């Protein structure tokens, strides 16, 4: 080994340590930002180390790629609004996975003849995971952005077709693994993996996106880790594994928060079949409330809990919500925000939106913390949330979402539900909360409802 190679290895070691430290510092909002500076430093060191130590002969492609990537990356970092964070994250999963897949194809082009069985196995794994995550994430991003319909796309025999595609993909992999000279199977595997990624995500509805996002995160990380095995590069293995495990832990958490298994999310096609569920209609009436009455109720309450859902994000109502909250606090009302783990379209989605609107994180409460407080809450304000407050999940064992832990707003003294219209919301499930005697409905766009409420509260 030459001196520059030692230097390169040293930067990789430093980068690995800094990455782990930075994730450790993620455990608290106070230290998280400093932690990220460490990770950035680690990344910078590893890039410099590679450029110095990797015997680079051609610079033009590298400089062009770094420049183009930096421009696009910086543009995204500056312009993407917080409400579009799920799409942005899905897109970055696609980019990361594509990079891993392409490096794999490149390795195959340049080193195929000298690969051992183990390296070829890792290579196949890398390319397969990378390719299917690329297209899967693109579909997810399209659904989140609204380019592709968010409803699950399903047809007869879908699982059978997917199984066939998956099996052919794996068999191509095995053939390529055993017979490296059968080049065509490598490319068949690559193509099938691209198709498989699409097929895997189109049947999944938008409401299940938190799980899908976490899973794709995990795959993208594991693809990077597999790249590390192929290139015999430890920092790639470490960073990829950290990413992979982070995604895996998040998927498990999200599934728990919905009381569903990962297989059920992937192959269940939730939200497509709703016919029999609606038969259980409680037949009650939804009572509408006027803005002034609602404002009066809020202004004279002691404790108010806001329960945001995806509707808050679509209406971009986070700032209006914070304004109303501050006005109430100025009147001496205790205001809290209750966050369900799967509210929104990705893990932590609601927290980020409310943070953007300057809601202090000490006012944000997790489900386990806030549920015991609902009985002593005067008004719970549900903003564009539906399934996460559906008491059927707790009370009706026949419900499609039976057993899913919910925010128990129905135990509050009164509930105001901000909703666009009388429809059933995304999952199509009937929500008995809306028919309860303590519940009143305030129809309209969440943003304008909230800012009108704020005005009315000022005049009380």
């Amino acid at each position, binding site marked *: 080994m030459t001196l520059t190679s030692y230097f390169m290895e040293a930067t990789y070691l430093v980068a690995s340590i800094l990455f782990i430290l930075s994730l450790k510092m993620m455990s608290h909002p106070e230290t998280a930002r400093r932690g990220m500076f460490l990770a950035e430093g680690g990344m910078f060191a590893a890039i410099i180390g590679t450029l110095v130590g990797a015997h680079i002969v*051609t610079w033009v492609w590298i400089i062009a790629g770094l420049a183009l990537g930096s421009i696009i990356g910086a543009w995204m970092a500056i312009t993407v609004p917080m409400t579009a964070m799920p799409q942005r994250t899905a897109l970055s999963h696609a980019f990361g996975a594509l990079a891993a897949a392409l490096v794999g194809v490149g390795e195959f082009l340049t080193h195929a003849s000298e690969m051992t069985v183990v390296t070829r196995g890792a290579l196949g794994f890398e390319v397969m995971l990378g390719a299917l995550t690329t297209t899967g994430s693109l579909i997810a991003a399209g659904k989140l952005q609204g380019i592709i319909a968010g409803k699950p796309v399903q047809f007869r025999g879908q699982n059978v077709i997917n199984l066939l595609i998956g099996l052919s993909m794996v068999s191509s992999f095995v053939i390529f693994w055993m017979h490296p000279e059968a080049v065509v199977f490598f490319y068949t595997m690559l193509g099938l993996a691209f198709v498989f990624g699409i097929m895997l995500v189109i049947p999944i509805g938008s409401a299940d996106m938190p799980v899908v996002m976490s899973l794709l995160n995990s795959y993208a*990380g594991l693809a990077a880790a597999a790249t590390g095995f192929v290139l015999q590069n430890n920092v790639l293995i470490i960073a990829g594994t950290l990413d992979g495990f982070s995604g895996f832990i998040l998927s498990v958490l999200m599934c728990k928060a919905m009381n569903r298994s990962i297989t059920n999310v992937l192959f269940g096609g939730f939200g497509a079949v709703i016919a029999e569920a609606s038969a259980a209609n409680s037949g009650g009436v939804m009572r509408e409330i006027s803005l002034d009455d609602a404002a009066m109720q809020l202004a004279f309450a002691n404790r108010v809990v806001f329960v945001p859902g995806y509707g808050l994000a679509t209406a971009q109502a986070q700032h209006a919500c914070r304004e109303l909250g*501050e006005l109430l606090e100025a009147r001496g009302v205790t205001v809290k925000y209750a966050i369900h783990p799967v509210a929104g379209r990705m893990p932590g989605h609601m927290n*980020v939106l409310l943070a953007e609107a300057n809601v202090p994180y000490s006012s944000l409460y997790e489900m386990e913390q806030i549920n015991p407080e609902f009985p002593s809450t005067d008004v719970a304000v549900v903003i564009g949330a539906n399934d996460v407050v559906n008491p059927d999940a707790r009370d009706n064992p026949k419900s499609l979402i039976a057993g899913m832990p919910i925010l128990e707003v129905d135990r509050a003294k009164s509930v105001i539900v901000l909703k666009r219209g009388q429809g059933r919301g995304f999952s199509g499930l009937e929500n008995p909360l809306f028919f309860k005697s303590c519940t009143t409905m305030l129809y309209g766009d969440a943003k304008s409802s909230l800012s009108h409420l704020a005005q009315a509260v000022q005049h009380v």
Partner: protein
Amino acid sequence: MNPAVLIASVYVFALAAFLGYQVISRVPPLLHTPLMSATNAISGISLIGSLVLAGAMPHEAKAQLPAHILGFVAVTTATVNVVGGFGITDRMLKMFGKRKADTKAVTK
């Protein structure tokens, strides 16, 4: 890849998985979105593999141009993730941090 290297790699993988589990399960749900975008940026470390592909002399000379072009695309997408990922994570974490100061101002 000889067996010793493979075993060493598996060690690294297993230890990283263990450490990742320990570290990441301590991240509060509050920060799950920044966590996802941070780990994403960190896994943009596949950039270093892309750099080698885009710039180094491959063993098989006839594969040089395709390898460099694939490398160029990979460098681009990985850089987007690194720059964009760290940029956005910082933007989010800044929001979580600054609120502390704001609440202090309000309570005064």
